[in-house]
C-alpha cells in the first residue's frame, strides 16, 4: 500500500485505518420488513456521530447491530479493523470493547450500583477486585452519583440510573460508546444531567454513536449527523449544515415537524 502514494487508494486506506467502526452494505430484515437497507457508514476515531430520524426508521436497530445485539443478514461490520465475529468468545471479547447505553438503563437489578460497575471489570477484564472498586468509585464520582454507590438501581432516579449505566460502560475502557436513545425514558428534568455527562465524554475525545431525539445535543456535540428514514441513510452532514440547510425533502419534512417550537 505504501508504494502508490499519490493515488486515491491511499486516501481510502488512510481513511479506513482511521475508521474505528465501518459498516458496509449492511442489510437486515424483520420478517417482511427490510429495516436496514444497504447501510454504509464509517465512524472515525474520536468522532461523535448522532443518528436521528423518525420512529421505525431503523436507527436503534443500526446501533444494536454494531455490537451484534441484532444479527445482520448481509454485509460486514468491522470494529478497529477486525470483523464482528458471529458468536462465542471472540464476539464477547469484541463486545467488551464496545460500550452500550440503553434506553431503559438495564442496570442489574439484584446488584448495587457499585457492583454494577465492578462486575464487567472483574469478570471480563479480570481486574482484581480492589482496583475495580477504586475505578468504579472514580467513575461514579465523575458522573455525579458517587454517593449512591451502595444503593440498588430501583432506589435511584432515572437520570441517576442512566449515569450509572454510562459509568458501567466506561469501566470497560471501551473504544467506542453506543447510546441507544439514552434520554427517551427520562423525565424532562433529568435529561440534562445525562446529556451533560455525554457532552463531557464527547469533549474528551470518546468515539460515540448516539441515537437520539435531542436535537440540542446533536447541534452542540456531534461532528456529524446521520439522518435515517425507512431503513436507509438519507443524509449525512455536519450539524450546522443539516439543521440550517437540509438537502433531502425527507429531512426537511422531519425537521419541520420537530423544530416548530
Amino acid at each position, binding site marked *: 500500500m505504501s508504494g502508490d502514494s499519490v493515488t486515491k487508494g491511499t486516501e481510502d486506506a488512510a481513511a479506513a485505518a482511521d475508521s474505528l467502526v465501518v459498516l458496509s452494505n449492511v442489510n437486515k430484515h424483520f420478517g417482511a420488513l427490510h429495516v436496514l437497507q444497504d447501510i454504509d457508514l464509517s465512524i472515525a476515531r474520536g468522532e461523535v456521530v448522532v443518528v436521528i430520524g423518525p420512529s421505525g426508521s431503523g436507527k436503534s436497530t443500526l446501533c444494536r447491530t454494531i455490537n451484534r445485539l441484532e444479527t445482520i443478514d448481509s454485509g460486514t461490520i468491522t470494529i478497529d479493523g477486525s470483523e464482528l465475529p458471529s458468536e462465542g468468545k471472540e464476539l464477547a471479547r469484541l463486545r467488551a470493547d464496545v460500550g452500550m447505553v440503553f434506553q431503559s438503563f438495564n442496570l442489574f437489578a439484584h446488584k448495587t450500583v457499585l457492583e454494577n460497575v465492578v462486575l464487567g471489570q472483574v469478570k*471480563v477484564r479480570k481486574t482484581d477486585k480492589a482496583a475495580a472498586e477504586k475505578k468504579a468509585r472514580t467513575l461514579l464520582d465523575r458522573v455525579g452519583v458517587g454517593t449512591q454507590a451502595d444503593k440498588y438501581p430501583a432506589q435511584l432516579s432515572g437520570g441517576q440510573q442512566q449515569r450509572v449505566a454510562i459509568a458501567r460502560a466506561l469501566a470497560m475502557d471501551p473504544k467506542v460508546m453506543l447510546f441507544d436513545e439514552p434520554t427517551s425514558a427520562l423525565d424532562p428534568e433529568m435529561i440534562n444531567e445525562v446529556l451533560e455527562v455525554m457532552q463531557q465524554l464527547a469533549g474528551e475525545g470518546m468515539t460515540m454513536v448516539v441515537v437520539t431525539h435531542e436535537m440540542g445535543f446533536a447541534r452542540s456535540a456531534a461532528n456529524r449527523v446521520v439522518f435515517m428514514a425507512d431503513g436507509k441513510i438519507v443524509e449525512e452532514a455536519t450539524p450546522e449544515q443539516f439543521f440550517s440547510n437540509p438537502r433531502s425533502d425527507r429531512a426537511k419534512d422531519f425537521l419541520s415537524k420537530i423544530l416548530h417550537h
Partner: protein
Amino acid sequence: MFDFLESGQYDVLGAFWVNVQLTFYSAIGSLVWGTVLAGMRVSPVPLMRAFGTAYVNVVRNTPLTLLIIGCSAGLYQTLGISLGGDNFKDIGFRLAVLGLIAYTGTFVCEALRSGINTVPVGQAEAARALGLSFFQVLTLIVLPQAFRTVIAPLTNVLIALTKNTTVAATIGVAEAALLMKEMIENEAQALFAVFAVFALGFVVLTLPTGLVLGWVAKRVAVKR
C-alpha cells in the same frame, strides 16, 4: 388409643428422620439438576435444548413409583449399580434419592424456566454488551434474579418432594410410610390414630417449610 406409641415397638421419629434425610439430599440434588436442565433448555446449543426438552417431558410424565422401582430393579438388581452403598439399607436409600432427584429436577427446571422468563430481556442484553459469556450471563445475572421470583413455586415443589419421599417405601426404605403400613397391620384397632400420627408428622414437616420460604421470598424479592 395412642398406647401403641408407648409400646416402644415402633420408632416413629426414626422413620420420619429417614424422610427428612431423603428430602434433604433429594432437594439439594434436584435443585442442582433442575438448574442444569433449565440451563440446557435456554442454551443456544440446539442439542442441549433438545436433550433438556426430551428429558423433562419424559421424566415429568413418568410416575415416580415407576422411576424408583426402575432405579432399584433396573440399576441395582439388573446392572449391579449400588451407588457405593454396601448394605441393603444404604443402597435402597441412595437409589431412592437418585429416583427422587431425577423426577423432582424436572419440576425445578420448569419453575426456574418460568422465572427466567420474568427477567427483563434488557438484563441479559446489558450483560452480553459488557462481554460476558453465555454461561456468565446465565449464572451471574439471569439465574440469581430468576431464583428470587420462583421461591414460591419451588416451595410447592419442595413440599411435594417431602411427601413424595414416602414412595421410597416401595423399594423397602424404612421411612414413615413403610412403618405406617406395618403399624396398620399390627394395630388395626387403632387405624385412625395411626393415620392421624402420620398425617400430623407430615404437616409438622411441610408447614414450617412453606412459612419460612414464604418469608424468604419476600425478603429477597428483586425491586424494579
